[in-house]
């Protein structure tokens, strides 16, 4: 239909495998925390072994039941959620969920959080020294819990101290998941980088609200929830680009509204070394493998041989006087 340039190279020759700090990922496409549970449900629909990795639902030391309902609603190009970090807790995770994940042979990122310093550190210690966990993704950014969560993610000094404390007790590298609700992501990234974080994930959801005018009340019970989906992609790309431009050596895992291989490539070109796919999994359990296929085909079309070659390297706009050739 549309004239597409024929592929510049054979898609099979594209090397998706890539490095993320000390990690070797077989693909830059990972499943995002909270959008893939602990992986099992997807096995019925798709081949999980094709993923670059899986980030689990955020784990806390003790199980959590989550927030009152309704917990979700849809908005234009996005959705709000206020799940409240419901999870099975460290113990049940290690016992019931990790064995399945470890079996898959893909990189396992355990997203975790606490409600204060001691519980964060406790969690990092319990999870960070277990074989088969490749990354601890330190969630300092969840807007849906009352204590902890957001304050840890908005004050650089606090994030620095928290990250350092977790790094000290964990053998697994720590990747800090930053919140877009912070004023200055570059300052936050700097703070956690200096505290020993191996990398950063961005972005988490953005705090938002929707109102049911007929019932004159918020659409979700907690009034505010986290906005995800394509609506936030431009904001996420900007934040990834800002941090990548400032700290070119800091591994960034980018996310926010990825639905297609082209979206994923936008994040890589913005400077992310790998990406996570969140909300897309809900509508389409096979979203991650499809996006992986699309990315491979697009890289072939654009003659990008390896994932590393896709990262960063945006061309600036030429001076206006030369713009006629765009």
């Amino acid at each position: 239909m549309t004239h597409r340039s024929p592929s510049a190279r054979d898609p099979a020759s594209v090397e998706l495998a890539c490095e993320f700090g000390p990690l070797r990922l077989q693909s830059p496409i990972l499943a995002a925390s909270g959008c893939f549970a602990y992986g099992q449900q997807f096995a019925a629909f798709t081949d999980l072994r094709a993923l670059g990795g899986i980030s689990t639902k955020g784990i806390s030391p003790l199980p959590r039941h989550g927030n009152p309902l309704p917990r979700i609603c849809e908005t234009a190009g996005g959705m709000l959620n206020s799940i409240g970090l419901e999870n099975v807790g460290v113990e049940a995770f290690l016992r019931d969920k990790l064995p399945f994940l470890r079996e898959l042979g893909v990189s396992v990122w355990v997203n975790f959080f606490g409600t204060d310093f001691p519980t964060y550190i406790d969690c990092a210690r319990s999870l960070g020294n277990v074989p088969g966990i490749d990354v601890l993704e330190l969630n300092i950014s969840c807007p849906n819990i009352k204590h902890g969560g957001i304050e840890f993610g908005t004050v650089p000094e606090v994030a620095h101290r928290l990250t350092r404390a977790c790094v000290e007790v964990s053998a697994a590298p720590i990747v800090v998941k930053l919140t877009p609700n912070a004023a200055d992501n570059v300052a936050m990234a700097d703070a956690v980088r200096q505290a020993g974080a191996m990398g950063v994930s961005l972005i988490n959801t953005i705090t938002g609200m929707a109102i049911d005018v007929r019932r004159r009340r918020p659409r979700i019970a907690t009034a505010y929830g986290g906005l995800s989906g394509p609506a936030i992609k431009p904001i996420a790309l900007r934040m990834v680009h800002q941090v990548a431009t400032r700290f070119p050596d800091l591994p960034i895992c980018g996310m926010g509204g990825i639905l297609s291989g082209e979206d994923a490539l936008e994040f890589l070109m913005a400077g992310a070394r790998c990406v996570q796919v969140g909300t897309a999994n809900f509508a389409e359990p096979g979203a991650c493998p499809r996006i992986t296929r699309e990315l491979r085909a697009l890289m072939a079309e654009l003659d990008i041989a390896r994932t590393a070659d896709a990262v960063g390297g945006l061309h600036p706009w030429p001076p206006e006087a030369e713009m006629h050739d765009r």
Partner: protein
Amino acid sequence: MSAAQFEARVTANTRLGGGYFTLELEADAPTPVAGARPGQFVMLRGAWGRELLNPRAFSVLHAEGSRLAILAKPYGVGTRRMWALRPGDPMTVTGPLGRGFPDPDPDVRDLLVAGGVGLPPLHLQARVAAAAGLADRQELYYGGRDHHDLVLLHDFAAWGVAAHLATEDGSLGVRGRVTAALAPRLAQARANHERVRILSCGPTPMLAAVRTLGLAHGIETLLCLEENMACGFGVCLGCAVPVHGEKPYRYCCTDGPVFDAREVRWP
């Protein structure tokens, strides 16, 4: 029966009056939805681009081989778009999902209590029972605002399932709510030590009333619930249902949508 995601095309979109419509879909090959139990559901999504991300849940009205049908009514933005679908339009289907109602039982009378778009699970239960020669073990209690709100009645008649209708304006059946028709039947069952159970699906206020009645009469009451769903297969944790017991919530999509009325944490 394990679930699958597959592509299908609209083969018919039939307006039934009262705003209701049935959407018939066909895939290229037989699908696991053909094995759906009454109360199981599918997640449907049209070619909605990036505006509407999540599919919508619909009870299976009927499914056979590569075909399936649902009953719906325009409600929000998604069902309004579905109302406008035309033959040939594509849809993505995931299903069958959830746990449905128990099989019809020759020794038990199923009181099927339906309202609005809650009809499909009970319609399918009646269909299954009729196919098993158990039509006389099914009784439909079906309520709505007016006679437009009561659809697909001819099917129950054809299967030989007795239908007790109630409309708020009295335009069809008895005047009043469906619970008004149900209450004396429950009293009678209790008096006669008859083995009955309630299978119900419909608007939440109706389910709450049915639950109160069922509990009051000590009759087994199974409710097919609706919650906002993003995924339908247990990963988003959006569809929590408040329950009594150790944990405060269970999940509509994987633990339900059919729940025992006693379990549900309603007043």
